[in-house]
């Protein structure tokens, strides 16, 4: 099970552009590595989609390919306008979904 960490601000002023940083534990197996003992190719297994939503609306998303490093890091911006809730969602190729929520208060 992938473990996700998010660093998003709790408070902001209207009009502020804030930076959000996320990290998730995942091997991001590219399908190009070989098992050193048997010589067999280790099957590909990656997270291929990341989505960031605010109050249910997607404001940033990303497609990931085999070239994204293990334990993927992602940072991006958000323009604060009103209070609400962030939701960050990671889609695994095998259908596993990890999500994390965080609240934002706009003064």
């Amino acid at each position, binding site marked *: 099970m992938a473990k996700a960490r998010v660093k998003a601000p709790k408070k902001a002023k209207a009009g502020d552009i804030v930076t959000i940083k996320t990290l998730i534990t995942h091997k991001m197996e590219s399908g190009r590595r070989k098992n050193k003992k048997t010589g067999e190719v280790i099957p590909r297994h990656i997270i291929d989609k990341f989505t960031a939503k605010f109050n249910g609306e997607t404001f*940033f998303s990303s497609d990931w390919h085999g*070239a994204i*490093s293990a334990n993927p890091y992602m940072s991006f911006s958000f323009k604060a306008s009103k209070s609400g809730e962030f939701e960050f969602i990671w889609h695994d190729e095998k259908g596993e979904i990890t999500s994390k929520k965080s609240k934002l208060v706009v003064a």
Partner: protein
Amino acid sequence: MTKMKVEVLDRRQFVVASGAGAAAIIAGFSSAANATPEKAAEWIKKLTNGAKATEGKIKVDLPEIAENGNTVPIKVSVESPMTADNYVKAVHLIAEGNPAPELCSFYFTPMSGKANAATRVRLARTQKVIGIAVMSDGKVYMSQTQVKVTIGGCGG
């Protein structure tokens, strides 16, 4: 006298043989696992629907020398007001020298505020990384960044 002649011949033959061997090895390397600039160009064409890209607006930050190809920090920023009628729709990152040219794609909205994003990628060898920005009005911008990779990061 005859003995000398034979020795000279031998050395020449050796040089020719080893030269051919080295060439074969190099040819084997480049065709075996790595994406070619043509493959990368094909992928770019698919992403942009064949639209012509102009240089500028997009900036891709990479370390000049990446010691570990397994995790190379990459940062991208595009000049744009990010308003509802003028914003950056997508940014695509492409590695010419990786076994597969596609790295990742970012999709922005006016809610992003700034077209900035950062992540970490695997790079197989010293190469050029191409950034493509697609704007809301359909214009396409691009940039190329050279990166030196000490230890490649695509397994083997």
